[in-house]
């Protein structure tokens, strides 16, 4: 039963990866990353349940905090980019290459 939770988290994690590599919309990409972190959180909580120790919960809390911080910065960047190009397409920003 526990394993199903973990499998679910793995699936969500992989869906997150899929979102990152298959989408060009900045928002979607960031939310996909959030999804990956959430998957990790699910796993933490599940393992806490499995190990009967609450460390997992603390870890999940920490991850949430980090996720929040990242989200804040990410959104700032999104605004920045939108100011520049008025677009949310990651492929628009490819001046640096070669």
């Amino acid at each position: 039963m526990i394993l199903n939770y973990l499998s679910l988290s793995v699936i969500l994690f992989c869906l997150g990866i899929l979102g990152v590599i298959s989408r060009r919309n900045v928002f979607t990409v960031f939310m996909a990353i959030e999804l990956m972190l959430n998957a990790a959180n699910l796993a933490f909580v599940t393992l806490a349940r499995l190990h009967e120790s609450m460390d997992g919960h603390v870890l999940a809390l920490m991850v949430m905090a980090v996720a929040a911080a990242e989200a804040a910065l990410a959104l700032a960047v999104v605004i920045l980019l939108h100011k520049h190009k008025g677009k949310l397409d990651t492929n628009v920003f490819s001046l640096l290459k070669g």
Partner: protein
Amino acid sequence: MEQTATYLVYIPLLPLIGALVVGILHLATCRTNRLPEKLYGILGCIGPVLSFILALRVFFTLKGLAAEERVLTQELFTWFSVGELDVSMGFLADPLSSLMLIFVTLIGSLIHIYSIGYMAEDRNFGKFFAYMNLFLGSMLILVLGAGPVVMFVGWEGVGLCSYLLISYYSEDRDNVIAGNKAFIVNRIGDLGFVLGMSFLFWGIGADGFDFLSLKANAHNLTPALGITVCLLLFVGATGKSAQIPLYVWLPDAMAGPTPVSALIHAATMVTAGVYMVARFSFIYAHAPVAGAVVAWTGILTALLAAVFAMYQRDIKKILAYSTVSQLGYMFAGVGVAAYSAGIFHVFTHAFFKALLFLGAGSVIYALHHQQDIWKMGGLKEKMPITYKTMLIGALALAGCPPFSGFFSKDEILYSALATGHYGIWLVGVGVAAMTAYYTFRMIFVVFHGQPRDREAFNHAHEPSKVMTIPLIILAVGALFAGFLNLPGIFGGDLEVSHWLAPSLVEHHPHTSWFVELLAIIISIGAFALGFRAAYRKFGAGADEPSYTGFKQFGYRKFYVDEIYHYLIVAPYQLTGKAISYFIEPYITDGPVKLTSWLYKMAGAAFKLVQVGYVRVYAIYMVIGLSIMSLLLAQSLNL
């Protein structure tokens, strides 16, 4: 046993000092004010004359000693000593070298004197004398060297001087090329010499690498190694003494001034090979196989050169080939272990060949450097002294009794016969006839009959005293030198041979007086035959023949030079070009170039991978990740 003589070193040193002084004077003054030629002449002649005197002293000192003790040595300093190898810079005078000394210095001095006249008004008078002195010094080192290595110094030194003097008129490319040829061919021989020395050292040289100790240890030499050494050394001899297959340089060497040809390419240097073989008689005596090789090479060279000599039209070329041919005799002699006979021929040959060359020189000088015999003729009224002296020389060369050449040559042929080398003897007799033929062909065409070039003939005249006196002295030598070594049948008892005995390892064959007599009669017959043929054809003065058929073939020396050129020289040069224009850039350096090219290409390719799309970078990451996780899954065998 041996005694030390502190003056030996001066014999080679004096000419060398002379060379130094004259050379520096010349260098210092050649571009500004030239010094008077007399000065150079005197300075140049001092050295040789003094060394001649010293040579006499050596001779008499030796004579004063008992036969076995006739060895004078002088060790100057340790030249170099590495491990077992210990080479000392030392000199050795024994009967053999003393004999060489005497005629080398004597003829050397005479030719120096002669050159004062011959080289007059030459732009580089001083240089010439410097070179000549240098040559004489090296030659004396060669003769006096106490060990193979010291000998090699002189050996190469004379080679160098020969190169310098052949290409003396260096404005003309052909002369320089002739000089290069001489040097390079000699170098091929020197390779043999060096290797021979090395084998000799590892064979027996470990304790003492000079002739005396080598001679003492000669018995330790394994037979195979002995043959190896002998053959290698003989390669050196063929180079220096112009034997098959390395004789080709000598005729071209005639490009040098005539005194040079007389001194270096007739009397002294070219006989160094024979001297060297005699020096190493203590090895050759134990290696009869090698001896046979030497003898056959020599006699065949004699034959070939005689054939060439019969068809040459350049007077100096004729003499050059006759030299080669006579050298062949000498090698036949030493080859059949008759070392004294060979050396004696060297001795006599030095006189008459030098004489002939100097005579030819004065003819050429008189005719303003005309060398083609078919442009000469009837000169005997114009230049009587030259004619007479040259006639003597010719008779000696042709082996007409009682001239010197007869005795020495006959001694060689007799030894060949006596030691049972009948083939060699037979060929030798044939060559003797041919010798007589081409010698008198030259004499008759040049001096008898009608002048073919009137205009030149009128200007011709006898040269000055300074040139004629040496001729006369040499003529005397050519006339009487033979009597020094009269065989028993003529009432003598081979004085020279006995004189040389201590320094050689040979035993004189004893045969019945009948064989000896037969040999003499036959060789006289050969001379008569050749002389008669020559007289019939050219005696009354013949016109220039048309060089066709075999004549042409012989005149072009059987195209040997061309063959060498196309078989060796041209391929060599071609290889050089091929390497430098194809192999070096494309094959040897190819991998290097290719590597760097590939590297640059790969770099350019990687530029394309950096597309700049962030998602693509993420995809790279994930791809890498998935590959790794595949491997991980495998290694965890899940």
